[in-house]
Protein backbone atom coordinates (compact mmCIF):
# COMPACT_ATOMS: atom_id res chain seq x y z
CA UNK A 1 0.00 0.00 0.00
CA UNK A 2 1.41 3.31 -1.09
CA UNK A 3 1.86 6.06 1.45
CA UNK A 4 -0.85 8.70 1.61
CA UNK A 5 0.37 12.27 1.56
CA UNK A 6 -3.06 13.86 1.86
CA UNK A 7 -6.08 12.43 3.63
CA UNK A 8 -9.41 14.19 3.98
CA UNK A 9 -11.79 12.40 6.29
CA UNK A 10 -15.51 13.27 6.09
CA UNK A 11 -14.83 16.96 5.70
CA UNK A 12 -17.56 19.59 5.71
CA UNK A 13 -16.74 23.20 5.08
CA UNK A 14 -19.03 26.19 5.50
CA UNK A 15 -18.00 29.73 4.65
CA UNK A 16 -18.91 32.37 7.25
CA UNK A 17 -20.12 29.66 9.60
CA UNK A 18 -22.68 30.87 12.10
CA UNK A 19 -23.60 34.10 10.31
CA UNK A 20 -26.59 34.89 8.08
CA UNK A 21 -24.17 34.55 5.13
CA UNK A 22 -23.27 30.94 5.88
CA UNK A 23 -22.69 28.96 2.71
CA UNK A 24 -21.72 25.30 2.73
CA UNK A 25 -19.08 24.54 0.11
CA UNK A 26 -18.09 20.95 0.92
CA UNK A 27 -20.24 18.02 2.04
CA UNK A 28 -18.86 14.93 3.77
CA UNK A 29 -15.83 14.75 1.52
CA UNK A 30 -13.29 11.95 1.95
CA UNK A 31 -10.24 11.81 -0.24
CA UNK A 32 -6.80 10.21 -0.32
CA UNK A 33 -3.89 11.42 -2.40
CA UNK A 34 -1.02 8.96 -2.64
CA UNK A 35 2.57 9.94 -2.16
CA UNK A 36 4.34 10.65 -5.45
CA UNK A 37 1.16 10.78 -7.51
CA UNK A 38 0.15 13.38 -10.08
CA UNK A 39 -3.49 14.11 -9.35
CA UNK A 40 -5.66 16.37 -11.48
CA UNK A 41 -8.64 17.96 -9.74
CA UNK A 42 -11.47 18.86 -12.09
CA UNK A 43 -15.05 20.08 -11.76
CA UNK A 44 -17.26 23.00 -12.73
CA UNK A 45 -16.54 26.52 -11.47
CA UNK A 46 -17.74 26.94 -7.89
CA UNK A 47 -17.75 23.20 -7.20
CA UNK A 48 -15.35 23.55 -4.25
CA UNK A 49 -11.99 22.68 -5.84
CA UNK A 50 -10.22 25.77 -4.54
CA UNK A 51 -11.78 25.29 -1.10
CA UNK A 52 -10.29 21.79 -0.91
CA UNK A 53 -6.87 23.10 -1.92
CA UNK A 54 -7.05 25.79 0.76
CA UNK A 55 -8.01 23.20 3.37
CA UNK A 56 -5.02 21.05 2.38
CA UNK A 57 -2.74 24.07 2.71
CA UNK A 58 -4.12 24.97 6.13
CA UNK A 59 -5.55 28.28 4.95
CA UNK A 60 -9.04 27.24 6.02
CA UNK A 61 -10.15 25.21 8.99
CA UNK A 62 -12.57 22.33 8.32
CA UNK A 63 -16.04 22.85 9.81
CA UNK A 64 -16.29 19.09 10.39
CA UNK A 65 -13.94 16.14 9.85
CA UNK A 66 -10.14 16.05 9.67
CA UNK A 67 -7.44 16.93 7.17
CA UNK A 68 -4.00 15.25 7.28
CA UNK A 69 -1.01 16.25 5.21
CA UNK A 70 2.33 14.46 5.53
CA UNK A 71 1.46 13.20 9.00
CA UNK A 72 0.08 16.45 10.40
CA UNK A 73 -3.64 16.30 11.20
CA UNK A 74 -5.99 19.19 11.84
CA UNK A 75 -9.59 19.18 13.03
CA UNK A 76 -12.21 21.90 13.61
CA UNK A 77 -10.68 22.60 17.03
CA UNK A 78 -7.10 23.09 15.80
CA UNK A 79 -5.33 26.39 16.45
CA UNK A 80 -3.97 28.67 13.73
CA UNK A 81 -0.48 27.45 14.58
CA UNK A 82 -1.48 23.84 13.96
CA UNK A 83 -3.04 24.88 10.65
CA UNK A 84 0.20 26.56 9.69
CA UNK A 85 2.01 23.26 10.31
CA UNK A 86 0.16 21.79 7.31
CA UNK A 87 2.00 24.32 5.18
CA UNK A 88 5.47 23.22 6.22
CA UNK A 89 5.91 20.70 3.41
CA UNK A 90 3.29 22.04 1.01
CA UNK A 91 3.72 24.58 -1.78
CA UNK A 92 0.66 26.34 -3.14
CA UNK A 93 0.68 28.17 -6.46
CA UNK A 94 -2.47 30.31 -6.47
CA UNK A 95 -4.59 31.32 -9.42
CA UNK A 96 -2.86 34.21 -11.20
CA UNK A 97 0.10 33.92 -8.82
CA UNK A 98 1.83 36.95 -10.39
CA UNK A 99 -0.57 39.03 -8.23
CA UNK A 100 1.44 38.11 -5.13
CA UNK A 101 4.75 39.62 -6.32
CA UNK A 102 5.85 42.56 -4.20
CA UNK A 103 9.63 42.86 -3.81
CA UNK A 104 11.96 45.27 -5.56
CA UNK A 105 13.93 42.56 -7.31
CA UNK A 106 13.08 39.11 -8.61
CA UNK A 107 15.60 37.39 -6.33
CA UNK A 108 14.25 39.12 -3.20
CA UNK A 109 10.74 38.03 -4.06
CA UNK A 110 11.74 34.41 -4.54
CA UNK A 111 13.71 34.52 -1.26
CA UNK A 112 10.60 35.62 0.69
CA UNK A 113 9.36 32.06 1.30
CA UNK A 114 12.66 30.47 2.37
CA UNK A 115 13.36 33.44 4.69
CA UNK A 116 9.93 33.09 6.28
CA UNK A 117 10.74 29.46 6.93
CA UNK A 118 13.74 30.56 8.96
CA UNK A 119 16.54 29.86 6.46
CA UNK A 120 19.68 31.98 6.58
CA UNK A 121 20.06 34.66 3.92
CA UNK A 122 22.74 32.69 2.06
CA UNK A 123 20.75 29.44 2.07
CA UNK A 124 17.64 31.31 0.96
CA UNK A 125 19.57 32.96 -1.88
CA UNK A 126 20.95 29.62 -2.99
CA UNK A 127 17.48 28.02 -3.02
CA UNK A 128 16.06 31.04 -4.82
CA UNK A 129 18.72 30.86 -7.57
CA UNK A 130 18.04 27.17 -7.97
CA UNK A 131 14.28 27.71 -8.20
CA UNK A 132 14.73 30.45 -10.81
CA UNK A 133 16.88 28.08 -12.84
CA UNK A 134 14.20 25.40 -12.56
CA UNK A 135 11.59 27.72 -14.05
CA UNK A 136 14.02 28.70 -16.79
CA UNK A 137 14.89 32.24 -15.74
CA UNK A 138 18.63 32.98 -15.98
CA UNK A 139 20.91 35.06 -13.75
CA UNK A 140 20.17 38.22 -15.75
CA UNK A 141 16.61 38.31 -14.31
CA UNK A 142 17.69 38.22 -10.65
CA UNK A 143 18.20 41.95 -10.18
CA UNK A 144 15.26 43.08 -12.32
CA UNK A 145 12.02 44.38 -10.87
CA UNK A 146 9.32 41.70 -11.13
CA UNK A 147 6.92 44.39 -12.37
CA UNK A 148 9.03 44.97 -15.52
CA UNK A 149 8.66 41.38 -16.71
CA UNK A 150 6.13 39.96 -19.15
CA UNK A 151 3.04 38.16 -17.83
CA UNK A 152 4.48 34.69 -18.47
CA UNK A 153 7.79 35.60 -16.83
CA UNK A 154 6.00 37.07 -13.80
CA UNK A 155 4.10 33.83 -13.42
CA UNK A 156 7.32 31.84 -13.53
CA UNK A 157 8.86 34.09 -10.87
CA UNK A 158 5.81 33.50 -8.67
CA UNK A 159 6.10 29.74 -9.18
CA UNK A 160 9.82 29.93 -8.36
CA UNK A 161 8.83 31.70 -5.13
CA UNK A 162 6.94 28.55 -4.14
CA UNK A 163 9.53 26.06 -5.44
CA UNK A 164 12.28 27.79 -3.45
CA UNK A 165 10.65 26.39 -0.32
CA UNK A 166 11.29 22.86 -1.61
CA UNK A 167 7.79 21.49 -1.08
CA UNK A 168 7.20 17.73 -1.26
CA UNK A 169 3.55 18.36 -2.14
CA UNK A 170 2.89 21.00 -4.78
CA UNK A 171 -0.62 22.39 -5.32
CA UNK A 172 -1.23 24.37 -8.51
CA UNK A 173 -4.54 26.16 -9.06
CA UNK A 174 -4.98 26.61 -12.81
CA UNK A 175 -1.34 27.50 -13.41
CA UNK A 176 -1.80 27.97 -17.16
CA UNK A 177 -4.82 30.32 -17.07
CA UNK A 178 -4.24 33.30 -19.34
CA UNK A 179 -0.93 32.07 -20.78
CA UNK A 180 -0.23 31.51 -24.47
CA UNK A 181 0.17 27.90 -25.57
CA UNK A 182 3.96 28.02 -25.41
CA UNK A 183 3.99 29.53 -21.91
CA UNK A 184 1.42 26.97 -20.79
CA UNK A 185 3.47 24.08 -22.18
CA UNK A 186 6.64 25.31 -20.44
CA UNK A 187 4.85 25.37 -17.10
CA UNK A 188 3.28 21.94 -17.58
CA UNK A 189 6.64 20.45 -18.58
CA UNK A 190 8.19 22.00 -15.47
CA UNK A 191 5.49 20.45 -13.29
CA UNK A 192 5.98 17.11 -15.02
CA UNK A 193 9.74 17.29 -14.32
CA UNK A 194 9.09 18.04 -10.66
CA UNK A 195 6.76 15.06 -10.50
CA UNK A 196 9.43 12.80 -11.96
CA UNK A 197 11.84 14.07 -9.30
CA UNK A 198 9.41 12.79 -6.66
CA UNK A 199 7.16 15.74 -5.83
CA UNK A 200 3.50 14.90 -5.27
CA UNK A 201 1.42 17.10 -7.58
CA UNK A 202 -2.15 18.36 -7.18
CA UNK A 203 -3.24 20.22 -10.30
CA UNK A 204 -6.56 22.06 -10.47
CA UNK A 205 -7.46 22.49 -14.11
CA UNK A 206 -10.24 22.90 -16.67
CA UNK A 207 -8.18 21.48 -19.55
CA UNK A 208 -8.99 17.82 -20.08
CA UNK A 209 -6.00 17.52 -22.44
CA UNK A 210 -3.76 18.31 -19.45
CA UNK A 211 -5.53 15.63 -17.43
CA UNK A 212 -5.14 13.05 -20.20
CA UNK A 213 -1.49 13.88 -20.89
CA UNK A 214 0.04 14.37 -17.47
CA UNK A 215 -2.08 13.08 -14.60
CA UNK A 216 -2.05 9.55 -13.24
CA UNK A 217 -5.08 10.16 -11.00
CA UNK A 218 -8.18 12.32 -11.43
CA UNK A 219 -10.53 13.63 -8.79
CA UNK A 220 -13.88 15.02 -9.95
CA UNK A 221 -15.66 17.40 -7.59
CA UNK A 222 -19.22 18.50 -8.18
CA UNK A 223 -21.41 20.63 -5.88
CA UNK A 224 -18.99 20.13 -3.01
CA UNK A 225 -19.05 16.34 -3.22
CA UNK A 226 -16.62 13.79 -4.56
CA UNK A 227 -18.02 12.54 -7.89
CA UNK A 228 -15.13 10.34 -9.00
CA UNK A 229 -11.60 9.31 -8.12
CA UNK A 230 -9.50 7.04 -10.33
CA UNK A 231 -7.28 6.97 -13.41
CA UNK A 232 -7.90 9.34 -16.34
CA UNK A 233 -8.52 6.32 -18.58
CA UNK A 234 -11.34 5.14 -16.37
CA UNK A 235 -12.86 8.63 -16.25
CA UNK A 236 -12.74 9.17 -20.00
CA UNK A 237 -14.20 5.73 -20.71
CA UNK A 238 -17.30 6.64 -18.68
CA UNK A 239 -19.39 8.89 -20.90
CA UNK A 240 -22.23 9.19 -18.41
CA UNK A 241 -19.91 10.45 -15.68
CA UNK A 242 -18.39 13.02 -18.03
CA UNK A 243 -21.81 14.30 -19.07
CA UNK A 244 -23.12 14.44 -15.49
CA UNK A 245 -20.24 16.62 -14.39
CA UNK A 246 -20.25 18.74 -17.56
CA UNK A 247 -16.69 17.75 -18.42
CA UNK A 248 -15.38 18.13 -21.95
CA UNK A 249 -13.65 15.24 -23.72
CA UNK A 250 -10.06 15.58 -24.88
CA UNK A 251 -9.78 15.46 -28.69
CA UNK A 252 -8.31 11.95 -28.69
CA UNK A 253 -11.10 10.61 -26.49
CA UNK A 254 -13.89 12.04 -28.64
CA UNK A 255 -12.20 10.65 -31.79
CA UNK A 256 -11.90 7.28 -30.09
CA UNK A 257 -15.55 7.27 -29.04
CA UNK A 258 -16.69 8.45 -32.49
CA UNK A 259 -14.67 5.75 -34.25
CA UNK A 260 -16.00 3.02 -31.99
CA UNK A 261 -19.55 4.33 -32.47
CA UNK A 262 -18.96 4.25 -36.22
CA UNK A 263 -18.11 0.55 -36.07
CA UNK A 264 -14.32 0.76 -36.14
CA UNK A 265 -12.91 -1.92 -33.88
CA UNK A 266 -10.16 -0.48 -31.67
CA UNK A 267 -8.22 -2.74 -29.33
CA UNK A 268 -7.96 -2.06 -25.62
CA UNK A 269 -9.34 0.81 -23.50
CA UNK A 270 -10.03 4.38 -24.61
CA UNK A 271 -7.00 6.24 -26.03
CA UNK A 272 -5.79 9.25 -24.10
CA UNK A 273 -3.57 10.88 -26.72
CA UNK A 274 -3.71 11.32 -30.46
CA UNK A 275 -0.42 9.40 -30.80
CA UNK A 276 -1.88 6.44 -28.95
CA UNK A 277 -4.98 6.52 -31.13
CA UNK A 278 -2.87 6.75 -34.28
CA UNK A 279 -0.84 3.73 -33.20
CA UNK A 280 -4.00 1.72 -32.59
CA UNK A 281 -5.42 2.72 -35.95
CA UNK A 282 -2.14 1.91 -37.68
CA UNK A 283 -1.98 -1.63 -36.27
CA UNK A 284 -5.65 -2.04 -37.13
CA UNK A 285 -5.11 -0.97 -40.75
CA UNK A 286 -1.97 -3.08 -41.07
CA UNK A 287 -3.89 -6.10 -39.77
CA UNK A 288 -6.54 -5.57 -42.41
CA UNK A 289 -3.89 -5.30 -45.17
CA UNK A 290 -2.47 -8.65 -44.14
CA UNK A 291 -5.93 -10.25 -44.12
CA UNK A 292 -6.66 -9.21 -47.69
Amino acid sequence: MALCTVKLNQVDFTYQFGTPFAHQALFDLSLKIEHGSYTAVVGPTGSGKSTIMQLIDGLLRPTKGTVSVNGVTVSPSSSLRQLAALRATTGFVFQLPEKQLFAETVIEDVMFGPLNNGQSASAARENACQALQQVGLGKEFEQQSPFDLSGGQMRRVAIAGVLAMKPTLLILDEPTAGLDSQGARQILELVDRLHQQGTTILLVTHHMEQVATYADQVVVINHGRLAFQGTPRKLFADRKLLAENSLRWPAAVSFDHALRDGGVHLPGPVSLSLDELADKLATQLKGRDQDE
Partner: protein
Amino acid sequence: MNNRVVLGMYVPTNSRFHSLDPRAKLLVVCWYVVLVFLATSLVENLWLALILGMMMVITKVPFRMYWHGLKPMAWVIAFTVVVQLLFSSGGITYWYWGPFHLTSGGISDAGLVFARFTLVILASTVLTVATPPLQLADAVESIMKPLKVIHVPVGQVSLMLSIAMRFIPTIFDEVETIMNAQRARGAKFDEGSLFKRAKRFVSVLIPLFVTSFQRAEELATAMDARDYYPNGKRTKYRLLRWQKRDWVAVGLMAFVTVGFLVCHWFNIAII
Protein backbone atom coordinates in the same frame (compact mmCIF):
# COMPACT_ATOMS: atom_id res chain seq x y z
CA MET B 1 -14.72 33.65 -1.46
CA ASN B 2 -14.36 35.76 1.62
CA ASN B 3 -14.54 34.13 4.99
CA ARG B 4 -14.87 37.10 7.31
CA VAL B 5 -17.67 39.35 8.33
CA VAL B 6 -16.95 42.91 7.31
CA LEU B 7 -17.78 45.74 9.68
CA GLY B 8 -21.24 47.11 8.98
CA MET B 9 -21.86 44.79 6.07
CA TYR B 10 -25.32 44.75 4.45
CA VAL B 11 -27.48 41.96 5.93
CA PRO B 12 -30.60 41.36 3.88
CA THR B 13 -33.77 40.68 5.92
CA ASN B 14 -37.43 41.32 5.22
CA SER B 15 -37.80 43.96 7.93
CA ARG B 16 -39.85 47.13 7.66
CA PHE B 17 -36.73 49.19 8.22
CA HIS B 18 -35.00 47.56 5.24
CA SER B 19 -37.89 48.38 2.94
CA LEU B 20 -37.73 52.13 3.68
CA ASP B 21 -36.43 54.54 1.07
CA PRO B 22 -32.65 54.87 1.58
CA ARG B 23 -33.08 58.64 1.91
CA ALA B 24 -35.52 58.11 4.77
CA LYS B 25 -33.06 55.77 6.50
CA LEU B 26 -30.21 58.22 6.03
CA LEU B 27 -32.35 61.06 7.35
CA VAL B 28 -33.56 59.06 10.36
CA VAL B 29 -30.06 57.97 11.34
CA CYS B 30 -28.51 61.44 10.84
CA TRP B 31 -31.30 62.97 12.91
CA TYR B 32 -30.70 60.39 15.61
CA VAL B 33 -26.95 61.13 15.65
CA VAL B 34 -27.67 64.85 16.08
CA LEU B 35 -29.85 64.00 19.10
CA VAL B 36 -27.03 61.86 20.52
CA PHE B 37 -24.70 64.84 20.41
CA LEU B 38 -27.29 67.10 22.01
CA ALA B 39 -27.85 64.68 24.89
CA THR B 40 -26.00 65.61 28.06
CA SER B 41 -27.84 63.77 30.83
CA LEU B 42 -28.37 60.19 31.82
CA VAL B 43 -32.14 60.29 31.21
CA GLU B 44 -31.71 61.61 27.66
CA ASN B 45 -29.14 58.96 26.86
CA LEU B 46 -31.32 56.20 28.30
CA TRP B 47 -34.21 57.36 26.12
CA LEU B 48 -31.96 57.33 23.03
CA ALA B 49 -30.55 53.91 23.92
CA LEU B 50 -34.10 52.58 24.24
CA ILE B 51 -34.97 53.96 20.77
CA LEU B 52 -31.79 52.48 19.28
CA GLY B 53 -32.57 49.11 20.83
CA MET B 54 -36.00 49.23 19.22
CA MET B 55 -34.50 50.13 15.84
CA MET B 56 -32.08 47.21 16.14
CA VAL B 57 -34.94 44.84 16.88
CA ILE B 58 -36.98 46.21 13.96
CA THR B 59 -34.14 45.50 11.48
CA LYS B 60 -34.37 41.76 12.37
CA VAL B 61 -30.59 41.57 12.10
CA PRO B 62 -29.03 39.27 14.76
CA PHE B 63 -27.43 41.24 17.60
CA ARG B 64 -24.20 39.36 16.95
CA MET B 65 -23.77 41.31 13.70
CA TYR B 66 -23.99 44.59 15.66
CA TRP B 67 -21.45 43.29 18.10
CA HIS B 68 -19.14 42.56 15.13
CA GLY B 69 -19.56 46.19 14.09
CA LEU B 70 -18.75 47.50 17.56
CA LYS B 71 -15.87 45.15 18.41
CA PRO B 72 -13.14 46.75 16.25
CA MET B 73 -13.83 50.09 17.98
CA ALA B 74 -13.78 48.64 21.50
CA TRP B 75 -10.18 49.68 22.19
CA VAL B 76 -10.70 53.23 21.00
CA ILE B 77 -13.76 53.55 23.22
CA ALA B 78 -11.99 52.03 26.23
CA PHE B 79 -8.96 54.32 25.75
CA THR B 80 -11.08 57.48 25.48
CA VAL B 81 -13.19 56.54 28.49
CA VAL B 82 -10.08 55.93 30.63
CA VAL B 83 -8.55 59.26 29.56
CA GLN B 84 -11.79 61.06 30.44
CA LEU B 85 -11.95 59.28 33.79
CA LEU B 86 -8.40 60.15 34.86
CA PHE B 87 -7.81 63.58 33.38
CA SER B 88 -11.14 65.41 33.59
CA SER B 89 -11.68 67.74 36.48
CA GLY B 90 -14.74 69.29 38.09
CA GLY B 91 -17.08 68.23 40.85
CA ILE B 92 -15.92 66.27 43.87
CA THR B 93 -12.46 64.68 43.79
CA TYR B 94 -12.59 61.11 45.08
CA TRP B 95 -8.99 60.10 44.53
CA TYR B 96 -5.81 61.52 42.99
CA TRP B 97 -2.28 60.38 42.30
CA GLY B 98 0.17 62.70 40.52
CA PRO B 99 -1.57 64.02 37.41
CA PHE B 100 -4.44 61.53 37.71
CA HIS B 101 -7.73 62.66 39.21
CA LEU B 102 -10.86 60.68 39.72
CA THR B 103 -13.64 63.22 40.01
CA SER B 104 -17.41 63.15 39.79
CA GLY B 105 -17.15 65.42 36.73
CA GLY B 106 -14.72 62.94 35.16
CA ILE B 107 -17.06 60.04 35.78
CA SER B 108 -20.00 61.79 34.13
CA ASP B 109 -17.79 62.94 31.21
CA ALA B 110 -16.54 59.38 30.74
CA GLY B 111 -20.09 58.04 30.80
CA LEU B 112 -21.14 60.61 28.23
CA VAL B 113 -18.22 59.78 25.91
CA PHE B 114 -18.99 56.08 26.24
CA ALA B 115 -22.66 56.61 25.45
CA ARG B 116 -21.91 58.83 22.45
CA PHE B 117 -19.39 56.45 20.93
CA THR B 118 -21.55 53.36 21.34
CA LEU B 119 -24.79 54.97 20.22
CA VAL B 120 -23.27 56.65 17.16
CA ILE B 121 -21.41 53.51 16.02
CA LEU B 122 -24.44 51.31 16.53
CA ALA B 123 -26.74 53.80 14.80
CA SER B 124 -24.50 53.95 11.75
CA THR B 125 -24.33 50.15 11.79
CA VAL B 126 -28.15 50.09 11.76
CA LEU B 127 -27.98 52.18 8.59
CA THR B 128 -25.33 50.08 6.82
CA VAL B 129 -26.71 46.64 7.70
CA ALA B 130 -30.10 47.68 6.37
CA THR B 131 -29.05 49.55 3.22
CA PRO B 132 -27.06 48.17 0.28
CA PRO B 133 -24.05 50.49 -0.30
CA LEU B 134 -25.12 51.50 -3.79
CA GLN B 135 -28.55 52.60 -2.55
CA LEU B 136 -26.82 54.65 0.10
CA ALA B 137 -24.79 56.36 -2.63
CA ASP B 138 -28.02 57.03 -4.54
CA ALA B 139 -29.55 58.53 -1.42
CA VAL B 140 -26.56 60.83 -0.90
CA GLU B 141 -26.79 61.94 -4.52
CA SER B 142 -30.49 62.63 -4.22
CA ILE B 143 -30.06 64.62 -1.01
CA MET B 144 -27.15 66.60 -2.51
CA LYS B 145 -29.11 67.55 -5.65
CA PRO B 146 -29.88 71.13 -4.51
CA LEU B 147 -26.11 71.79 -4.46
CA LYS B 148 -26.12 71.64 -8.26
CA VAL B 149 -27.31 75.25 -8.18
CA ILE B 150 -23.93 76.31 -6.79
CA HIS B 151 -22.12 74.16 -9.41
CA VAL B 152 -21.14 71.25 -7.17
CA PRO B 153 -20.58 68.26 -9.57
CA VAL B 154 -23.13 66.12 -7.72
CA GLY B 155 -23.27 63.43 -10.41
CA GLN B 156 -19.51 62.93 -10.42
CA VAL B 157 -19.19 62.98 -6.65
CA SER B 158 -21.90 60.34 -6.34
CA LEU B 159 -20.33 58.24 -9.11
CA MET B 160 -17.03 58.28 -7.20
CA LEU B 161 -18.91 57.34 -4.06
CA SER B 162 -20.70 54.47 -5.83
CA ILE B 163 -17.46 53.16 -7.30
CA ALA B 164 -15.73 53.35 -3.94
CA MET B 165 -18.58 51.49 -2.23
CA ARG B 166 -18.86 48.94 -5.02
CA PHE B 167 -15.22 47.98 -4.69
CA ILE B 168 -15.01 47.64 -0.89
CA PRO B 169 -15.99 43.92 -0.94
CA THR B 170 -13.83 43.31 -4.02
CA ILE B 171 -10.81 44.77 -2.28
CA PHE B 172 -11.55 42.80 0.89
CA ASP B 173 -11.59 39.61 -1.19
CA GLU B 174 -8.37 40.67 -2.82
CA VAL B 175 -6.68 41.29 0.53
CA GLU B 176 -7.76 37.84 1.68
CA THR B 177 -6.42 36.16 -1.47
CA ILE B 178 -3.09 37.97 -1.36
CA MET B 179 -2.70 37.28 2.36
CA ASN B 180 -3.41 33.61 1.70
CA ALA B 181 -0.86 33.53 -1.11
CA GLN B 182 1.75 35.05 1.20
CA ARG B 183 0.74 32.76 4.06
CA ALA B 184 1.28 29.85 1.68
CA ARG B 185 4.82 31.24 1.30
CA GLY B 186 5.30 31.08 5.05
CA ALA B 187 4.37 34.63 6.02
CA LYS B 188 2.94 34.76 9.55
CA PHE B 189 0.83 37.90 9.90
CA ASP B 190 -0.18 37.33 13.50
CA GLU B 191 3.20 36.67 15.06
CA GLY B 192 6.13 38.80 16.14
CA SER B 193 6.50 42.42 17.21
CA LEU B 194 4.38 45.24 15.85
CA PHE B 195 7.29 46.41 13.70
CA LYS B 196 7.79 42.97 12.19
CA ARG B 197 4.10 42.63 11.48
CA ALA B 198 4.00 46.02 9.78
CA LYS B 199 7.00 45.06 7.67
CA ARG B 200 5.37 41.80 6.65
CA PHE B 201 2.27 43.68 5.64
CA VAL B 202 4.29 45.31 2.86
CA SER B 203 4.00 41.99 1.03
CA VAL B 204 0.23 42.49 1.00
CA LEU B 205 0.03 46.24 0.44
CA ILE B 206 2.23 46.40 -2.64
CA PRO B 207 0.36 43.73 -4.64
CA LEU B 208 -2.90 45.34 -3.46
CA PHE B 209 -1.83 48.76 -4.77
CA VAL B 210 -0.63 47.28 -8.05
CA THR B 211 -3.90 45.46 -8.71
CA SER B 212 -6.00 48.42 -7.54
CA PHE B 213 -4.29 50.75 -10.01
CA GLN B 214 -4.65 48.17 -12.76
CA ARG B 215 -8.31 47.86 -11.96
CA ALA B 216 -8.80 51.63 -11.92
CA GLU B 217 -7.20 51.86 -15.32
CA GLU B 218 -9.33 49.06 -16.74
CA LEU B 219 -12.47 50.62 -15.30
CA ALA B 220 -11.59 54.01 -16.83
CA THR B 221 -10.99 52.37 -20.21
CA ALA B 222 -14.27 50.48 -19.98
CA MET B 223 -16.12 53.72 -19.16
CA ASP B 224 -14.44 55.47 -22.09
CA ALA B 225 -15.39 52.61 -24.37
CA ARG B 226 -19.01 53.14 -23.34
CA ASP B 227 -18.70 56.86 -24.08
CA TYR B 228 -18.96 58.06 -20.51
CA TYR B 229 -19.34 61.82 -20.39
CA PRO B 230 -19.02 63.32 -16.92
CA ASN B 231 -21.63 66.04 -17.39
CA GLY B 232 -24.07 63.95 -19.36
CA LYS B 233 -27.67 63.68 -18.23
CA ARG B 234 -28.40 60.14 -17.17
CA THR B 235 -31.38 58.26 -15.88
CA LYS B 236 -31.42 55.75 -13.04
CA TYR B 237 -31.97 52.03 -13.20
CA ARG B 238 -33.07 51.94 -9.56
CA LEU B 239 -35.54 54.75 -8.91
CA LEU B 240 -35.98 56.04 -5.39
CA ARG B 241 -39.64 56.40 -4.44
CA TRP B 242 -40.70 58.24 -1.32
CA GLN B 243 -43.74 56.45 0.05
CA LYS B 244 -46.16 56.74 2.91
CA ARG B 245 -44.07 54.51 5.17
CA ASP B 246 -41.13 56.90 4.72
CA TRP B 247 -43.27 59.76 6.07
CA VAL B 248 -44.20 57.47 8.96
CA ALA B 249 -40.52 56.83 9.71
CA VAL B 250 -39.70 60.53 9.70
CA GLY B 251 -42.82 61.20 11.77
CA LEU B 252 -41.67 58.65 14.35
CA MET B 253 -38.37 60.50 14.54
CA ALA B 254 -40.30 63.68 15.37
CA PHE B 255 -42.01 61.74 18.16
CA VAL B 256 -38.58 60.55 19.39
CA THR B 257 -37.46 64.19 19.44
CA VAL B 258 -40.50 65.18 21.49
CA GLY B 259 -39.65 62.39 23.93
CA PHE B 260 -36.09 63.65 23.99
CA LEU B 261 -37.27 67.20 24.86
CA VAL B 262 -39.48 65.80 27.62
CA CYS B 263 -36.44 64.01 29.07
CA HIS B 264 -34.47 67.24 28.76
CA TRP B 265 -37.07 69.25 30.72
CA PHE B 266 -37.48 66.48 33.23
CA ASN B 267 -33.76 66.57 33.82
CA ILE B 268 -33.73 70.34 34.36
CA ALA B 269 -36.75 70.07 36.64
CA ILE B 270 -35.14 67.57 39.05
CA ILE B 271 -31.95 69.64 39.24
